[in-house]
């Protein structure tokens, strides 16, 4: 045991309510690190997918087809107006029954979409619904006349969107997007409900096994999420600054 581990071991002996067991027991350290890694993976994948969903949704909302617009609107209403925890449970337990299975060893039947897969799908669509609305607000902030200028230069709808409308809309959308992605990172903890071994799941397991570790686990959870969200916000703010155009907005 090194000095760091010794310190927390001694602390737990003197103050049993503050048992930072994962700082001196390598098995528990491993659980925390694997949980943290799962949380990071879940967050990064969901952030990227939800932004893509937001982009495609915002693009489809401007479609000529009334049916397409209605489908996008229905999607937004469903995912925005129902709790993400219920969505997770629904995807995993309800939809999960209908997905095909495969058998890796000839005995066990394993569904092709794992609980991690469902968590990614569910959380991405949840945050994506908000992202569609965020991007739509940004797109509406781009003057119709700017779009007309692009069209009068021969651009089609997609070209005008990619080269003119979206780059401007995105700058307007960044602060709201920032907020929603912060919420998404925090909502990944709800994947606990379908036993995704992310950080909260691991921490709860640890203090179920070692009840004296409860307070320590909570403290570390807060600190880790402050750190993770801090990194995200710092990145988004840097992006916002880099995208600033002299003499435009602000």
């Amino acid at each position: 045991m090194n000095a760091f581990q010794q310190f927390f071991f001694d602390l737990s002996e003197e103050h049993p309510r503050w048992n930072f067991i994962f700082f001196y027991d390598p098995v528990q350290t491993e659980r925390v690190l694997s949980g943290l890694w799962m949380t990071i993976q879940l967050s990064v994948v969901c952030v990227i997918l939800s932004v893509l969903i937001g982009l495609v949704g915002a693009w489809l909302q401007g479609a000529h087809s009334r049916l397409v617009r209605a489908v996008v609107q229905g999607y937004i209403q469903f995912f925005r107006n129902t709790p993400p925890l219920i969505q997770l449970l629904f995807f995993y337990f309800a939809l999960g029954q209908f997905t095909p299975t495969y058998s890796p060893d000839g005995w066990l039947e394993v569904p092709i979409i794992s609980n991690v897969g469902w968590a990614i799908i569910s959380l991405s669509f949840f945050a994506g619904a908000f992202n569609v609305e965020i991007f739509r607000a940004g797109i509406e902030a781009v003057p119709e006349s700017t779009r007309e200028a692009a069209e009068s230069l021969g651009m089609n709808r997609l070209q005008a969107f990619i080269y003119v409308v979206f780059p401007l809309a995105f700058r307007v959308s960044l602060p709201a997007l920032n907020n929603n992605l912060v919420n998404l990172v925090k909502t990944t903890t709800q994947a606990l409900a379908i036993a995704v071994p992310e950080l909260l799941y691991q921490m709860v397991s640890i203090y179920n096994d070692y009840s004296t570790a409860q307070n320590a686990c909570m403290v570390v959870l807060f600190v880790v999420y402050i750190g993770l969200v801090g990194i995200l916000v710092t990145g988004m703010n840097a992006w916002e600054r880099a995208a600033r155009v002299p003499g435009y907005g602000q």
Partner: protein
Amino acid sequence: MPANSWTPDQPIVAIHDLHKSFGALEVLKGVSLEVMKGEVICIIGPSGSGKSTLIRCINALNPVDSGSILVEGQEVNDPAVDKLALRKKVGMVFQQYNLFPHKTALQNVMMAPLKVLKQPRGEVEKRARALLTRVNLEGKEDSYPGELSGGQQQRVAIARSLAMNPDVMLFDEVTAALDPETVKEVLVAIKDLAQSGMTCILVTHEMGFAREVADHIYFTDRGVIVEHGPPATFFTESSDPRTREFLSQIL
């Protein structure tokens, strides 16, 4: 009429009996006019008389209800019209410049040739720099629209439109949003263009300018062309009382 039957001795833009309504409001009530290649025409008239709507119809920014618009023999009032082909031929400059605020002056001019015409970058940049020089904006290539004055922005907009090598240029009240002292620099750029042989259709309130550059002046009021003629006679010998009243207020 098939598109390829057009020859330069026919009108480059021929509008016949054009009707256009916005809801219950009929803005154009049967407008006809013809523009020959190399001609400069000015459309004048009181606000709300349909001038802007008319020229926006020419490059299909506004769909029309009935009537015909032929640009180089090609019908614009046709759902199957090739808008890209049309807009390569017809450039447009707007009252509010409508530059792309996230791009520099040079990038604004280069965007359409690069992305729409897929021309090689080196060639496009060379031409874009030459166009900016032509509208007297040397040294402003790397400025963003937000860093330029209204007159400078409008000249970038003219260069941006010219970068597509159009055959016809439409100007929709391009000096109406400018400070009086910058109006002149924009008019100089347009005059230079007109004298180089570019076909220009201008909606304008600058009567002195219209008189100076136009080959033909059209006066519109309440959705119809009240009268038209070459500037030499139009300003002095107009016969319709509506024209005379308008001119007396503005001159």
